């Protein structure tokens, strides 16, 4: 009994303390509590992992039965296996660094304790999600992180845009959760339980489905959930808007941990996906499409955080591509490496913004190389890693994916290479625009304090050396490695694409600063399309949000509720009164008319008696 439950509860306790007492505690105490709880949790993870040894098979701990109704039984159970171990390390590790960083970054923001409380709460839900031993507890974590992202995005609630972004994030996640819960129902309907162990055991000996069977449907619905959470094509719109939140939030949630939850979940239910090839292809295609789409949009963004947000979406596309082609371990490997350099990129951007007191638009930056050298150095390492330059972590994980994609379907490889090129281009475009050339802003930038720069350096080291942590080898027992010819040619092509991207960026933004505007001028239509994010948000609004809102007001509320039902009810009352007024005419006041009515009555009576037969 390794008390796995301690891992999530410590951050929970930290968050409760900050929430309730935060106002009265000084800032140091608040950040101390927050960072301390994450540190403790990180240490406890290390203690548990060391205690568990090789983790060939999952170690499950069951605490109490949560829902028990008839045959169906769901308990609050936590589980650790190799996959969870990796994720745990990433979440707690990166989380710790970001907590340290944000204690500096948020130093002079009001609502300090509330921020850390939410951050800890997020850690709690993320750990629950990762440690879950059945789909329901995973769903708890799943929705919990959605809630925390809503709270954190909407942290600056005074700004209406922040509130909207938070709401948008939550609702889009909700749509994803809709898919996920439907999948859960189907799982219970087919397997009778939600426990990973028992579900996968039963799934193993089920036949591989050719067409669209139940398993494929489950996987598709799980995929819908994943797209919601990991911002894939149909439901990615919330991530770019999530930049409204403070930068550490973007770093922690929208780069390192939460967005990868979708990937983790798909990886976790790999046994189901293996039985549903159709679903696997769907995952791959969605991943690829997202990667390409996000990359193109990233090219034309001027807000530094937006660029990195679209790069995250694109990289997630890569991970889904890996999962789709069956290289689960490659996907997870890319998750780890991506966590390192993307967190670094965001935190770097954070310190840039911190330096320029909140300025985010790259056009007002430039030439910061000399002013904030350490930030520049660390960001440069991350840029190099993400571009896929050979020795660094990005290269290793991306190539693994590209090789697996090539093995699966060659055209996927080529699309992947092109996007790799574009990734390299827009990252270095951001680097050159901010750090090279002359300073175009009107602030006087100053270097961030060491409490921020420390984590940056650690992350820089990790992103450089990350490639050598052989995650795929480590996850071998879970996901059998796909043996494929290891043609070196493919690797060279991808590296070449990366370098070409960097060169092109150098050419356009350092060598001849006027070039980008010229190109943008020539492809005016294409440029505005890309710049405005293919008008996806507007399409969603027009297609779904407005019709729903106006439609329900005019048709449903006014139309049916008041129009049909209320009128019908009031109508009955009115018609009764009308009938009354018709009969009133009979009372004409003239005695002779009454007389005639009397005679009429008697004639009828006599007729009735005579024709209908009297008593005889």
């Amino acid at each position, binding site marked *: 009994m390794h008390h796995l439950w301690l891992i999530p509860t410590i951050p929970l306790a930290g968050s409760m303390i900050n929430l309730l007492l935060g106002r009265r505690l000084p800032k140091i105490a608040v950040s101390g509590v927050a960072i301390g709880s994450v540190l403790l949790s990180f240490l406890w993870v290390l203690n548990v992992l060391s205690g568990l040894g090789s983790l060939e098979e999952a170690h499950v701990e069951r605490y109490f039965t949560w829902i028990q109704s008839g045959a169906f039984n769901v308990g609050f159970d936590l589980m650790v296996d190799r996959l969870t171990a990796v994720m745990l390390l990433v979440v707690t590790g990166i989380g710790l660094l970001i907590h340290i960083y944000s204690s500096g970054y948020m130093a002079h923001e009001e609502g300090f304790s509330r921020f850390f409380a939410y951050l800890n709460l997020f850690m709690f839900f993320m750990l629950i999600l990762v440690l879950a031993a059945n789909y329901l507890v995973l769903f708890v974590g799943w929705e919990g992180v959605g809630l925390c992202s809503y709270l954190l995005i909407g942290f600056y609630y005074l700004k209406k845009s922040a509130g909207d972004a938070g709401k948008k994030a939550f609702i889009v996640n909700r749509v994803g959760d809709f898919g996920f819960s439907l999948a859960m129902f189907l799982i219970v309907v087919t397997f009778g339980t939600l426990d990973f162990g028992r579900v996968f055991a039963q799934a193993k000996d089920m036949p591989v489905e050719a067409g669209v069977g139940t398993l494929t449907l489950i996987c598709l619905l799980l995929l819908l959930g994943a797209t919601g959470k990991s911002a894939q094509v149909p439901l990615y719109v919330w991530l770019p808007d999530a930049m409204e939140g403070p930068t550490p939030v973007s770093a922690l949630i929208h780069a390192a941990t939460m967005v990868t939850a979708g990937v983790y979940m798909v990886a976790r239910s790999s046994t189901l996906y293996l039985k549903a090839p159709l679903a696997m292809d769907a995952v791959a295609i969605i991943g690829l499409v997202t990667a390409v789409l996000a990359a193109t949009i990233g090219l034309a963004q001027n807000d530094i955080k937006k660029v990195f947000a679209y790069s995250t979406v694109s990289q997630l596309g890569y991970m889904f591509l890996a999962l789709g082609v069956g290289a689960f371990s490659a996907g997870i490997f890319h998750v780890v490496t991506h966590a390192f350099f993307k967190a670094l990129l965001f935190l770097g951007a954070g310190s840039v913004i911190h330096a320029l007191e909140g300025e985010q638009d790259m056009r007002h930056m430039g030439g910061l190389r000399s002013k904030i050298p350490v930030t520049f150095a660390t960001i440069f390492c991350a840029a190099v890693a993400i571009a896929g330059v050979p020795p660094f972590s990005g290269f290793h994980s991306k190539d693994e994916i590209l090789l697996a994609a090539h093995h699966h379907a060659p055209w996927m490889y080529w699309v992947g290479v092109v996007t790799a090129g574009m990734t390299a281009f827009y990252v270095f475009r951001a680097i050159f625009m901010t750090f090279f050339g002359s300073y175009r802003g009107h602030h006087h930038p100053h270097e961030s304090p060491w409490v921020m720069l420390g984590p940056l350096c650690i992350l820089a080291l990790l992103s450089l050396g990350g490639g050598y942590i052989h995650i795929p080898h480590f996850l071998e027992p879970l996901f059998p490695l796909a043996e494929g010819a290891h043609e070196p040619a493919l690797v060279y092509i991808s590296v070449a694409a990366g370098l070409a991207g960097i060169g092109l960026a150098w050419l356009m933004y350092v060598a001849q600063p006027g070039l980008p505007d010229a190109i943008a001028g020539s492809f005016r239509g294409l440029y505005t399309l890309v710049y405005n994010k293919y008008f996806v948000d507007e399409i969603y609004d027009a297609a779904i949000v407005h019709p729903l809102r106006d439609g329900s007001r005019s048709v449903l509320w006014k139309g049916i509720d008041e129009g049909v039902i209320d009128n019908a009810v009031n109508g009955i009352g009115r018609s009764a009164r009308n009938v009354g007024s018709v009969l009133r005419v009979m009372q*004409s006041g*003239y*005695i002779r*008319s009454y007389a*005639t009515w009397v*005679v009429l009555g*008697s*004639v009828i009576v*006599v007729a009735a008696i005579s024709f209908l037969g009297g008593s005889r």
Partner: protein
Amino acid sequence: MDAILFLIFATIAVLCAINLVVQKHPISSALSLIGVMASLAVLYLLLGGEFLAAVQLIVYAGAIMVLFVFVIMLLNAGAERRSNRSLMATLFGVPLLAAFLALVAYVIQRGLPPTEGVYFGGFTQGTPRAIGRVLFTQYLLPFEVTSVLILIAIIGAVVLARKEI
């Protein structure tokens, strides 16, 4: 003999009744009503209702019609003015009446068992003695009730017709 008597007095009654309806002036209709009543009294005699014939003459013709004639004379009511206000009466009045008559005649023709005809001596219990006996034994309660009714009517008439109202 009976038939002749019946026919005479039946025609008198019908003619007087028609006269009542047709006449414009109330006094003439009052007198024709008295005519009807007198002829009916004779018919009662034919049917053996001696006591009733007398009572008819005394009560109906003698008392009630006197009241009518009195009121007509007191109010000096003139002939009727023609005012067809109530649509209902003018439209449906006559046809309804014809229908009513036809229906009743039909009922009488079909409904009544074919009994022997009416002749003068056929029914002898109509004497005051017989009626008196039944009236004060079997129908005592109605008798008392009607007497109270008449009392009420008298008081009512007095109160209604008083001067100062």
